[in-house]
């Protein structure tokens, strides 16, 4: 293990592209055994931030420090070209060599062991998502980056998969960067929450966030109106592209 428990550290990281900041000034730290969750509206830079952490951009502003090479990634969208005949079992060993037992174990954990020999093209959206997650955990990574890992998974499955993610972070002592829209789960299973809207809007432990007045505004009685979740009352106001346009005292 590294002397430091910090797997990835972003300092003032951002991307400026086509005369526009996709995301800017993100400070973020992912530690072993901890789950960090990114929340925020569409286009707020969640996926971009995850990709910065993964080192997928060539030119970024700010600084990224990565202390591990053993990384697993579940992208937001994976489309398998129809020209490519790939079975689940082939996909599991895409970037890694695995024993048959490890493959079966990982598929069993995400509940898709019976699909081991199926073709990826024949899976449903939820099944495919379970396979993506199984592939990522089978590698026993130090850092796991999950971009909306349970999209399309049925409700009971969703709960089970989130508790599996929690379990994995403890069992493997790995750091997890999670992007999720499912705020209730986020609040119960996460160690640290970062709310993005082109920059870091607010962050802290779920408890801190939950006790803050922002959280009550977010998850109070009006939480049924899900859209209002993102209309926080912070100390500043955003323009539509996420720039800060007004400070409120």
């Amino acid at each position: 293990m590294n002397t430091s428990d910090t797997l990835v550290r972003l300092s003032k990281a951002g991307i400026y592209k086509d005369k526009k900041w996709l995301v800017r000034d993100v400070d973020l730290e992912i530690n072993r055994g901890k789950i960090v969750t990114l929340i925020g509206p569409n286009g707020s830079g969640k996926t971009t931030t995850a990709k910065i952490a993964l080192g997928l951009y060539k030119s970024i502003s700010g600084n990224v420090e990565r202390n591990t090479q053993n990384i697993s990634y579940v992208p937001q969208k994976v489309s398998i070209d129809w020209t490519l005949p790939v079975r689940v079992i082939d996909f599991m060993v895409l970037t890694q060599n695995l024993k048959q037992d490890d493959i079966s174990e990982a598929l069993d954990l995400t509940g898709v062991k019976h699909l081991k020999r199926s073709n990826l093209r024949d899976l449903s959206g939820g099944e495919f998502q379970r396979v993506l997650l199984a592939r990522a955990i089978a590698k026993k990574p130090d850092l796991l980056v999950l971009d909306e890992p349970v999209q399309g998974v049925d409700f009971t499955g969703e709960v089970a998969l989130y508790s599996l993610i929690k379990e994995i972070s403890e069992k493997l002592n790995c750091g997890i960067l999670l992007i999720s829209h499912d705020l209730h789960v986020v609040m119960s299973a996460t160690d640290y929450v970062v709310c993005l809207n082109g920059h870091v809007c607010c962050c802290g432990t779920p408890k801190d966030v939950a006790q803050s007045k922002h959280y009550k505004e977010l998850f109070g009685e009006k939480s049924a109106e899900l859209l209002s979740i993102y209309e926080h009352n912070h100390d500043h106001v955003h323009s539509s592209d996420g720039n800060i346009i007004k400070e409120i005292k």
Partner: protein
Amino acid sequence: MLDDFLVRAIIAGIGIALVTGPLGCFVVWRRLSFFGDTLAHSALLGVLLSISLNINVSLTIFVVSSLVALILLRLEKSTNLAGDSLLGLISHSSLAIGLVILGFLSFIRFDVLGVLFGDILSVNTNDLLFIWIGGGLILAVLFYIWKPLFASTVNYELAEAEGMNPERVNAIFTILLAALIAISIKMIGVLLITGLLIIPTAMARNLSNNPKQMVVLSIIGGLLSVFIGLYASFEINTASGPSIVVVALILFILSLIRIGKKNYEK
């Protein structure tokens, strides 16, 4: 035995089919068939340069095609043109430049049809050596980069995030394509090499449900095309390249019957 041109052609054909199988799979998976065409067209330029400068043909083709491949990779990044427009631009420009040079070389007796469609009669023992050593090298490199190349074919960002270097293996792969074209031009010809790359692979796609199976089947398809094509070319006196590709097409059509059945059963 190597004195017999048919035996030489068959040995050459086996060597080429062993390489076109796996490379063809990646060409199909990555949707690079037009890219292969462009490299092949630039091979005509290579042939003519080699004649006018009097240097080895295969080597010149390899250098010219590799250069074209690298220029293409470069241009794709630095212009706003779509990939297919760029390919058309390079493909036809290199063909045109080649033909203009050909005009200057009128004093040399030169078999254009042979370059365009392949000529088994012209395959000598030297070429055999080039095909088998070159082909062996191509397969060795492909085997070495197989995992990262396949991973980045399935998902570029996933491969990169998990520590592979997709950009580098992509560049290596295009060089391998250029090398294949260099060793196979004499046999198949500039216009038809992409056919041998993708038609047996397309057949294999119809019959396979995993990547390894597809590679093996496309090698078998390529070998069958070469054997039957060369035999037909010998017996009924047709050009070797087109005969091989026509056989490949027939195999592809046969594979459709199987797929039709599968769909019906569903």
